């Protein structure tokens, strides 16, 4: 890829510097400022004392006397740590469960070529397109019937409905790129399909597994409508739902602690993302491309 980029930039010397500023640097700067400003504002608000938040006199873009009061309130006087724990448990369990189910399904569809494999692959893709906003009402009824309402299990069992189709679809693409010959050699040497999957395919598909895992984890961490509908008591809520529903008390908005909650809740996915940017991007584009 770097080759291609160098070739592309090869003709850029034809552009004069002022022109580059107008057509490239300034628009890019505007995009950056707009895209990042809400995060800057989140952080500013989270560390700002209340008097400064409601003052129109001081410059709102800076903090005169930073405070940790909002974080203190969040961590010690709300259920925030519990929401964090719930989100971690739900995201980790549903991600790993979905990944395991998806590896098996993708291998079966892509490599075992059983009767109806093609149709199954298509069905998986269609399942990927079903949006949660048309499923949450009947799912709520099912969750209640199964006695799972207001438990973490309600979320752990329903998140795979969007994770499995996504992961399977992505992994199918990865498995397709692994040469058949490797498998044939192993078959001739007497390996079983299970051995082939564990010892040959999976080690080769590690980048795909990471992509799918990272993306699935982010999707479950960010999930909102199921968590809002299937859980009602504060101790079972996830971070996004807890912050939105529990921290807003009446008409007085505690912007400081709200933004502190938003910041802390965004941090884990942002950090994870920063370590695996390439995997994340290839997961996102791979899932759209096929």
């Amino acid at each position: 890829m770097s080759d291609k980029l160098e070739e592309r930039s090869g003709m850029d010397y034809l552009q004069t510097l002022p022109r580059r500023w107008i057509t490239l640097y300034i628009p890019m700067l505007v995009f950056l400022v707009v895209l990042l400003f809400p995060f800057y504002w989140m952080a500013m608000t989270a560390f700002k004392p209340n008097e400064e938040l409601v003052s129109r006199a001081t410059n709102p873009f800076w903090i005169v006397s930073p405070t940790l009061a909002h974080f203190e309130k969040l961590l010690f006087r709300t259920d925030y740590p519990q929401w964090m724990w719930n989100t971690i448990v739900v995201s980790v369990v549903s991600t790993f469960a979905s990944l395991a189910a998806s590896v098996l399904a993708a291998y079966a569809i892509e490599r075992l070529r059983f009767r109806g494999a093609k149709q199954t692959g298509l069905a998986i893709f269609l399942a990927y397109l079903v949006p949660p906003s048309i499923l949450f009402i009947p799912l709520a009824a099912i969750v209640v019937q199964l006695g799972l309402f207001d438990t973490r299990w309600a979320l752990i069992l329903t998140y795979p409905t969007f994770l499995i189709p996504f992961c399977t679809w992505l992994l199918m693409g990865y498995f397709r790129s692994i040469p058949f010959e490797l498998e044939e050699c192993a078959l001739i040497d007497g390996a079983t399909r299970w051995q082939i999957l564990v010892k040959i395919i999976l080690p080769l598909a590690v980048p795909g597994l990471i992509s799918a895992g990272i993306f699935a984890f982010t999707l479950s961490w960010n999930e909102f409508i199921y968590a809002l509908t299937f859980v009602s008591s504060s101790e079972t809520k996830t971070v996004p739902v807890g912050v939105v529903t529990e921290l807003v008390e009446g008409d007085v908005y505690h912007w400081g602690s709200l933004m502190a909650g938003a910041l802390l809740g965004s941090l884990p996915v942002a950090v994870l993302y920063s370590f695996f940017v390439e995997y994340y991007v290839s997961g996102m584009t791979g899932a759209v491309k096929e």
Partner: protein
Amino acid sequence: MSVSRFFDNRNTLGALFLLPAAALLLVFLTYPLGLGTWLGFTNAKIGRAGEWIGLENFQFLFGDAVARLSLFNTLFYTLVASVFKFVLGLWLALLLNKSLPFKAVLRAVVLLPFIVPTALSALAFWWLYDAQFSVLSWTLAKMGLIDSYINFLGDPWLARLSTIAANIWRGVPFVAITLLAGLQTISPSLYEAAALDGATEWQKFWHVTLPMLTPIIAVVMTFSVLFTFTDFQLIYVLTRGGPLNATHLMATLSFQRAILGGALGEGAALATAMVPFLLAAITFSYFGLQRRAWQQGGADK
């Protein structure tokens, strides 16, 4: 036939491997999809099984001003947001495809709005749109452009546009990064050939970039339309459908009717009414893909 050989049979093993995924999807996806459609034709309430009432829910919703408004809002929201997401996303992708300092960092940072939980970034927008303490109003007032603070979420049309702006902010990175991946697959030799023929920058964009990008644009925009049409979180956090139901989308209204109001049947009917639109979007994508096959010399499917 030994046991291990039995398990090596394609069909047996295929079924076995597919079992966990299929079981979960059948119970929690296929069944609710059917149940949801059925509920739409019943008068089910929370805690009470419904009876079949035919098209009554749909007839009621059709006559209901709020439901009709929510349909209008959803279409308006989807149309305006998608157009802006496409134009701005394509523009950003083209910028990122040029040689820039700190390119990798820029690309990573740009995607942040898409990574972070929407409900939480929506809270930041809620604060930015605050009627009394909005920093946007503060800045405009300091610049002398406005006299009184803007009531971003208090006026119907302003609220519509404000929520759309937040949606665009969240969606542009997704469109930009996926289109960037498409741009990087276009061979530079095409641009060189165009340059030799004396093509201007604009002609290169119009006659090389855009046609080569069409297939991926079709897919990306289908996904984008799908997400936007079924959006829930942004509206729920920013306005809960207000003021005067001006920002209610079909998804938020169905949540309000079914979960908060207890009218499961009516809510399910509203959700079911979204399906034809989604199918239209998917069909659109399908034809986009077909065009790709044709462009790359493949046979029509």
